[in-house]
């Protein structure tokens, strides 16, 4: 009988690990549906970005108030998780506060720090809930359905988890005074405020409340860890690889299509170094029709997106009422790769259903509205690049479907025939100088 709680704990832990690893494998497979992209260049710059932008949250601080509150939650998350280590050891070994005897008064300090962070997290989550639901910050308004619920759920779950810690510590302190079995930890500042709620309870009720809070917190954390992988909250992990693998070249540079280069060179009769007579390697689809035509980094970006909408709030097209929203581009990409992943699991072709660039997801009207200004890329706190996805979509429309807007087709024709995007005779190109050289 005495091992029953340890067995129960191991079972809970095993179930959580099972679901977590299964989901991580799914996400990894989904990301690998994307095309290859070489991001092995410039490692020092990549580490610098990871350190400053992901770990240091540099870009978050463009908006100092939400950045500060976010930092509290982030710090709380990282540091309070040290306590989860104790939970897990206690759970497996059947011990209670296993670090307390060894750490002595430092343990008291540590738990007080954790409690401070728990209160800070609680406070920030409450402010964030108010911002989302009462103040209705513009960039959160377009979210509806699951994304809206997801955002609120995360905040509510974090509040409940923090309350569980504080309840546990409050009842534990009461038990320390009444039952010698409980290890003396010294007093905890923040949870002491909750003591009046519990001090009239009997020892057995207190034990029940303390144990309930302990189990609630650890099961809550494990369940939340699984939940996170289905949620926008996945950014807590994906922010790091996404920042590391984000582009380190000037933002204005578009990636060269080497398949096209080979073809253009042979059309122009420039030696490509390839052995002649050999049939050219099969050219993959030009640009992107579907999510698996995008580079894996773009797909990873879709899982790193926390739907904060800073990109959309900076997008000139969106600001002026066009349908384009870089956030929606990322959310659509994620929905589509999730769908493609499910197709594969069910033994169907990945491409079944509507492709990413179709009326079900990202429409022509959206991609045609982009000014390629890079404001979204600049705004993203974790260096996601929605612009690259948009431009890949345009490539498919222009080169595979020839369905670019008519005026663009006219512009293409002008460049082909007059070597300028406007229809001027190429011989007039140097006329501007005549006026100047004749001027005295």
């Amino acid at each position, binding site marked *: 009988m005495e091992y029953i709680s340890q067995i129960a704990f191991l079972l809970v832990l095993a179930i959580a690990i099972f679901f977590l690893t299964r989901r991580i494998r799914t996400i990894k497979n989904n990301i690998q549906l994307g095309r290859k992209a070489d991001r092995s260049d410039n490692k020092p710059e990549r580490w610098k970005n990871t350190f400053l932008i992901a770990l240091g949250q540099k870009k978050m601080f463009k908006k100092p108030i939400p950045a500060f509150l976010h930092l509290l939650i982030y710090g709380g998350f990282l540091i309070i998780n040290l306590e989860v280590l104790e939970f897990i050891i206690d759970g497996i070994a059947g011990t209670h506060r296993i670090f307390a005897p060894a750490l002595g008064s430092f343990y008291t300090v540590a738990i007080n720090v954790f409690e401070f962070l728990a209160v800070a997290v609680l406070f920030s989550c409450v402010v964030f809930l108010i911002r989302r639901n009462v103040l209705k910050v513009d960039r959160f308004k377009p979210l509806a359905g699951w994304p809206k619920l997801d955002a609120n759920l995360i905040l509510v779950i974090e509040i409940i988890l923090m309350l569980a810690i504080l309840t546990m510590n409050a009842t534990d302190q009461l038990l320390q005074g009444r039952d010698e079995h409980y290890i003396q930890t010294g007093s905890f500042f923040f949870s002491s405020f909750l003591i009046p709620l519990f001090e009239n309870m009997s020892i057995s009720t207190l034990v029940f409340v303390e144990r309930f809070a302990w189990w609630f917190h650890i099961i809550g954390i494990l369940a939340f860890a699984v939940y996170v992988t289905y949620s926008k909250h996945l950014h807590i992990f994906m922010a790091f690889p996404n920042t590391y693998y984000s582009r380190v070249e000037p933002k204005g540079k578009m990636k060269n299509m080497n398949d096209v*280069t080979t073809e253009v060179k042979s059309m122009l009769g420039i030696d490509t170094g390839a052995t002649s007579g050999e049939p050219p390697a099969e050219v993959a689809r030009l640009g992107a029709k579907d999510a698996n035509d995008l580079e894996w980094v773009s797909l990873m970006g879709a899982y790193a997106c926390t739907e904060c909408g800073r990109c959309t709030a900076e997008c000139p097209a969106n600001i*002026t009422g066009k349908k384009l929203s870089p956030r929606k581009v990322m959310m659509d990409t994620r929905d589509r790769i999730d769908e493609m992943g499910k197709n594969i699991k069910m033994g169907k072709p990945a491409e079944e259903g509507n492709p990413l660039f179709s009326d079900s997801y990202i429409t022509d009207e959206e991609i045609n509205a982009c000014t390629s200004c890079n404001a979204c890329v600049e705004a993203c706190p974790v260096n996601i690049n929605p612009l690259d996805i948009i431009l890949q979509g345009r490539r498919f429309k222009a080169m595979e479907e020839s369905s670019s807007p008519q005026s663009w087709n006219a*512009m293409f024709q002008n460049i082909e025939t007059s070597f300028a995007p406007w229809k001027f005779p190429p011989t007039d190109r140097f006329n501007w100088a005549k006026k100047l050289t004749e001027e005295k």
Partner: protein
Amino acid sequence: MSDITYKVPTMQEMSGKGESPEVLFWVGCAGSFDDRYKAVTIAFTKILNKVGINFAVLGPEESCTGDPARRAGNEFLFQMQAMSNIQVLNGYNVKKIVTACPHCFNTLKNEYPELGGNYEVIHHSTFLQQLINDGKITLKGGGEYKGKKITFHDSCYLGRANGVYEAPRDVIKALDAELVEMKRCKTKGLCCGAGGAQMFKDAEPGRKEVNIERTEEALDTGAEVIAAGCPFCMTMMSDGVKNKEKESSVKVLDLAELIAKNEGL
């Protein structure tokens, strides 16, 4: 007005004489054909003449860099343009290029190397800043823009795309003018609405035109001059000012025009 005889040597003439210029001035399609931007080309050419820079242009041998084709998705057309331009540029052994168009600048600098075109490419704002720093342009004190409010509209392809924010501002400051910033500037600068090949099509349906949104912001600064460094921004901001019926009180001018006017060129 001035007693200088302006010269616009072409690469063909120069190489015919066995000479090679210090820098190639890449004029761009807007600089060659757009009536408003031809004035910028002329202003910049006058400055080059005045300072005595050994420069040349490609003249009729120049053609579109391919930027709008690439942004609109037509990679084939872009690469055709790029390769034929690279053949011309490499044929003349060009080492250094200056251009008054941020789109040409971005493409030549970042996108031609992969196709075999390696040049030192600078935008004319940086070129002008260097001339000022080197004392080759000494701005007369009490010039036309002394104390006047000037705001600078960041071109996306100069600013965010390539991180050039300070050079154009340094040029404005050198005029002894009062540089006033718009609410959204530098990394947060709002696009004029013409990038990504939008210049060559109508905007998608929406509430407002992007250039109107941006012009309102520029007018809010109370500046008498909206300075720009890009032909597309120039068109969009000028149209915006016209739309707001402010063209008599607010001028949209390129950095080269500001310098040239200040110098009485």
